[in-house]
């Protein structure tokens, strides 16, 4: 479950800090559709902030269609901000790791690997644009 933290010196209103932290977690996929947000009471007892502030943050998230509040049960994530590609990340990462091993056994050091990757990336992107 997501845990909130506050930066009192940020100058950002407390309810906005909560909204931003939920959105960031949604973008990174650390919370997903169906996950429950902590109850207002849990947040309040944890951070020592006004329950109205938490309620306001949750209302904002609900208006944006990101969460749904069910009376008496809690507030649940109903939509995600994670890019659709996020679910492919693991697979791609595994392929990349295999490639890195091949490069290492071919004798490339870290600098050569970085150089090869960035050069290839640059050329590929240039071809796509052209």
């Amino acid at each position: 479950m997501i845990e909130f933290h506050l930066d009192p010196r940020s100058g950002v209103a407390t309810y906005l800090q909560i909204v931003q932290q939920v959105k960031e977690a949604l973008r990174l996929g650390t919370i997903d559709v169906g996950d429950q947000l902590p109850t207002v009471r849990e947040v309040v007892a944890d951070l020592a902030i006004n329950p109205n502030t938490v309620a306001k943050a949750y209302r904002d998230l609900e208006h944006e269609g990101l969460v749904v509040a069910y009376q008496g049960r809690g507030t649940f994530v109903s939509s995600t901000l994670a890019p659709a590609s996020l679910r492919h990340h693991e697979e791609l990462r595994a392929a990349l790791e295999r490639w890195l091993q091949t490069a290492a056994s071919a004798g490339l050091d870290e600098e050569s690997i970085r150089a090869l990757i960035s050069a290839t990336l640059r050329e590929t992107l240039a071809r796509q644009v052209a």
Partner: protein
Amino acid sequence: MSPAPLDARDLGKRFRREWGLRDCTLTIPQGAIVGLAGPNAAGKSTLLALAAGLLAPTEGSISVLGRDPLREPSVLAEVGYVAQGAPLYRSFTVGETIEFARRTNSRWDDEIVGDLLTRVASQTKVGSLSAGDRARLALALAFGKQPQLVLLDEPFARLDPLAGREFLQLLMDGVAETSATVVIASHVIADIERVCDHIVLLTGGGVRLEGNVETLLESHRILMGPRRPLGSIHGVQRVVRERHSGRQLTLLVLSDGPIADPSWTVDQVGLEELLLAYMAPERLPTPSPPERLPLRWHG
């Protein structure tokens, strides 16, 4: 609509020849967490004692949850009041104190007290509790009444920062549980800034500033620029505080629109600085009536 938790009209209280509170008119919105701020002897304790039915007004009127606390003391069953220093019987144990409160209050919920009051053993004598635990016990007892209004007089005065934070956590937990309206008197703004969404500033026995915190912060700005004779500034309704240092001029202003003049550096203002500016003696005596901001809380 239910009546306001606290409503005062031209309220005044005189002690012998001194006025403790005078011309106090205010309405506390339902569900608000109110910071009652002001220097020592500003009238904060007097206002709370009048609301708790412990004092009779010399003039004007006060109404608590729509009723007069002196003529209809039954309303006090719905008010949790914690006086300065959280006075409790020192020779009682925690358990006996809770039992006493249970028997003397018509509305009582053991569950709330149990939920809120963890970590305090019931066999402990109240006299040997730490200041923080005693404050939390007094607060838990106030919530045990299932109050609609909680009045706290300088609850942080004897608490170290950690105990202060724990007290706030318990207070906010209690508010989430009971939806009570809360008024916290404190002369240290930093103690209440984290939680309060409404401010009443008392100075010299009168209301100096009142309003929703967000609205107040949005409507005030700090302007910094080279020193100059002050004419009217576009976007500024009123200068609250003016400070010079060398060739630099710093203003805290009540603003009524964007301040476009590029010779001013415009900055937001924090609650503490705002209240200090309104408290500043160089701005007194001020023309009454107190500041009533154009935008008001609509709960």
